């Protein structure tokens, strides 16, 4: 059974803007799924409809086998949402933000207290339980929203840009937390603008643009469709002229840096051999851009 199944989902806002133009999407149980798209592509509208914050114009949404229109309560019970922007009561304590959410899901008091403690500990926020939520740092606020979304143990967790604006150390801690949640059996749908994040965490991916899914496949399959990879080479000594190696497109970026476009079937060995023969010593290399980022740009342009 799929954690999420969407058929021909359309949304036209009152001002006539067509945000979704017939989206079909399936997310398997237990998946860690990336939903990517440029700003204004329809990601937030799609997530809004799945989580009942936006009214759809037409189409069908099924969550863990429950039709969102016919079995609304059961379908909603399966979902946990971590929105893009902070949306908890900023005057409430950290503990109450999570505890009250458990109440909205009809969880009895004792169980709600246990779940609250479990989720706050999992997100490393238990020590802050009596703090007023508006006094938390940006990263803690995001973790609080994850704890709140997890309190009713949803089978499908939707994370809408959960790491936006947090520093790299906190981001990596949050990645570990998300992976742990996924390992425990929760399906995760992640939207992010950090494509490195999607590449390293997600197994499957869909790219949405202009209200339509333009690509949906396994992450590996998508990445294997890249025909050319771009590398920056740092050189041991400054260059006097740009070296030429058959089969590779080489440009000089600075006196000690080269940009090389490497066709996928060529590999790097011939490149290094050619450079070495011309007396060019490479001290290090790195991908010019994240592989998924390159593909994403190609797809949405």
């Amino acid at each position, binding site marked *: 059974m799929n954690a999420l199944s969407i058929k021909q989902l359309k949304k036209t*806002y009152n001002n006539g803007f067509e945000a979704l133009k017939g989206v079909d999407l399936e997310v398997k149980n237990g998946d860690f799924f990336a939903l990517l798209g440029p700003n204004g592509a329809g990601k937030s509208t799609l997530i809004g409809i799945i989580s*009942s*914050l936006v009214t759809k114009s037409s189409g069908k949404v099924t969550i863990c086998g429950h039709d969102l229109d016919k079995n609304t309560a059961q379908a909603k*019970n399966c979902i946990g*949402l971590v929105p893009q922007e902070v949306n908890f009561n900023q005057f409430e304590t950290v503990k109450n933000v999570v505890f009250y*959410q458990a*109440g909205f899901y*009809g*969880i009895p008091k004792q169980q709600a207290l246990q779940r609250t403690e479990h989720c706050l500990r999992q997100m490393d926020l238990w020590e802050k339980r009596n703090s007023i939520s508006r006094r938390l740092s940006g990263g803690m606020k995001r973790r609080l929203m994850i704890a709140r979304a997890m309190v009713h143990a949803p089978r499908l967790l939707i994370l809408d840009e959960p790491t936006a604006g947090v520093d790299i150390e906190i981001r990596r801690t949050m990645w570990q937390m998300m992976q742990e949640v996924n390992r425990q059996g929760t399906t995760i749908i992640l939207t992010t603008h950090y494509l490195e994040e999607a590449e390293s965490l997600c197994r499957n991916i869909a790219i949405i643009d202009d209200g339509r899914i333009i690509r949906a496949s396994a992450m590996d399959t998508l990445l294997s469709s890249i025909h050319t990879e771009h590398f920056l080479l740092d050189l041991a000594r400054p260059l006097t002229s740009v070296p030429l190696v058959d089969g590779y497109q080489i440009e000089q970026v600075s006196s000690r840096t080269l940009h090389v476009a490497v066709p996928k079937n060529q590999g790097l060995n011939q490149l290094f051999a050619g450079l070495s023969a011309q007396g060019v010593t490479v001290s290090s290399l790195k991908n010019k851009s994240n592989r998924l980022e390159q593909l994403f740009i190609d797809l949405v342009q």
Partner: protein
Amino acid sequence: MNYSIAFKTILKKEILRFTRIWPQTLLPPAVTTALYFLIFGKLIGDRVGEVHGESYMDFIVPGIILMSVISHSYSNVVASFYSTKFQRHIEELLVAPVPDSVILAGYVCGGIARGVLVGCVVAAISTLFTHIPVKHWEIALAIFILTATLFSLAGFINAVFADSFDDISIIPNFVLTPLSYLGGVFYSVNMLPGIWRQIAQINPILYMINAFRFGLIGVSDVEIGLAFAMTLGFIVLLAIISLILLHRGTGVKN
């Protein structure tokens, strides 16, 4: 799905909200009404004489209590629900499997709780100035609760349509307060001349205040049955409108 837990959670949040900020919610009506009783009831009232055979102080006490219930039940729901929209934590309720009726009941009961509590505070203050006989307690209690319910619902609808903090103060300032003052709090409509008496009859607050006055001191300018029918009718109407608005997601969903 146990919806009673969701209802109790919303109600608990609402009650904690207004009790936590009691200097803003419970203290002002106590001070204001003490001044009403002192100035209008005692200092001026002693010179006014009797109305419907009752002292002026006794005559104005029911109206002042009910006026506080009206304004506080309304302002509790309008402020709380608008703030929930404004801070976007209404989304916590919308994503959860909470039926529209439970959301409405939670906020309205929160408004009733504040209206009743403020009404009791004002009633307690009034005992410092006069003795309230409570002639028909069941009528007084019923209209007291129904009035709080009606204005909580009205506050909810206002909050649904409000787009700014200005929008939540317009109705209380420019509609509720004038209607309350013109609803016979400080005078009997029989004292009004000709056409003004007719105009006063279309003010629904007049009926509630008179029904409550009848419950406390046994005098009224209006038919009590009509007052109850009107109040109940408005409650049903506003509850239906509120549920339709919630179902459509007006003001809370895109």
